[in-house]
């Protein structure tokens, strides 16, 4: 990754033009041609630096539900339980964390009611309590990273 890649990442995390030739429009501000920009974005995607290039949705405003859930998983069952949890397409990410509650995952569903079903199915399949911790108030969502 060079300085141009870093500039692309820092610029495009902030937003992307919604117009007929958006790559050309943003490439100009970076001193590139549209083709050069697309090639570099393709490479960053192939290298796994960029996960997605498009919209970040607001689940609740789409009528869906989003929650953070945690489980206390016995260490010897970790991989088995992770496999069960990750198999749900509604699970967007899942991390092991250093705490008695050691598995933390986000459930995002499109339809109201489905969240409760997913959490109940995970409890049934694993026999482990799932703590549902939905957002009560949002103070900041600015997940951006300076490259």
């Amino acid at each position, binding site marked *: 990754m060079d300085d141009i890649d870093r500039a692309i990442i820092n610029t495009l995390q902030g937003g992307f033009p919604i117009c007929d*030739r958006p*790559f050309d429009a943003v490439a100009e501000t970076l001193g590139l041609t549209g*083709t050069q920009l697309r090639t570099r974005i393709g490479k960053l995607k192939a290298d796994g*630096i960029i*996960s997605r290039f498009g919209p970040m949705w*607001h689940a609740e405003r789409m009528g869906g539900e989003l929650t953070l859930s945690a489980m206390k998983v016995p260490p010897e069952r970790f991989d088995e339980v992770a496999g069960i949890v990750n198999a749900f397409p*509604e699970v967007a990410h899942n991390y092991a964390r250093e705490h008695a509650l050691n598995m933390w995952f986000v459930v995002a569903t499109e339809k109201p009611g489905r969240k409760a079903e997913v959490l109940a199915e995970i409890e049934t399949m694993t026999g482990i309590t799932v703590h549902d911790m939905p957002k009560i108030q949002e103070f900041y969502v600015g997940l951006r*990273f300076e490259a």
Partner: protein
Amino acid sequence: MDLSDSDLALVAALAEGLPLVSHPYRAVGAQLGLDEAEVIARIQAMRDGGIIRRFGIIVRHHELGFKANAMAVWAIPDGVVSEVGRVLGDAPEVTLCYRRPPRLPDWPYNLFCMVHGRDRGAVEESIQALVRRFDLGAYPHAVLFSTRRFKQTGARYGRPIPRAAAAE
């Protein structure tokens, strides 16, 4: 904002991200039987309506070098949790900040912040600096570093439309 079936098809079509072509919105529209101007207008409306929080690239922070990822949590009395949340949410070190319900007895914490950094020491220092700066030392507190990432994908939304319908 209510989404039409055609909006939902567009949402699904955007799940993999924009195609890397000179007219990406035209290319997306071609899959759905929508013209370029219509795709642009609908995406703009969804952004203006707050359905789209942000339209751009989403990075994999670990691959970018942000390998230390901590969830810092506090148990703050209900009367002041909103105020503390706003202050922490404004801090540049904090990448996400939410109030969530405690789950007693396992989990007394109600304020959740994410702090990301290039190494664990730097993240620990950032969190300690937050505690000092905002006088949070009196509140029960925990820091949960992530040790393994099992899954990181975007959430999936929208309804793909059948190919035959798209071709009409």
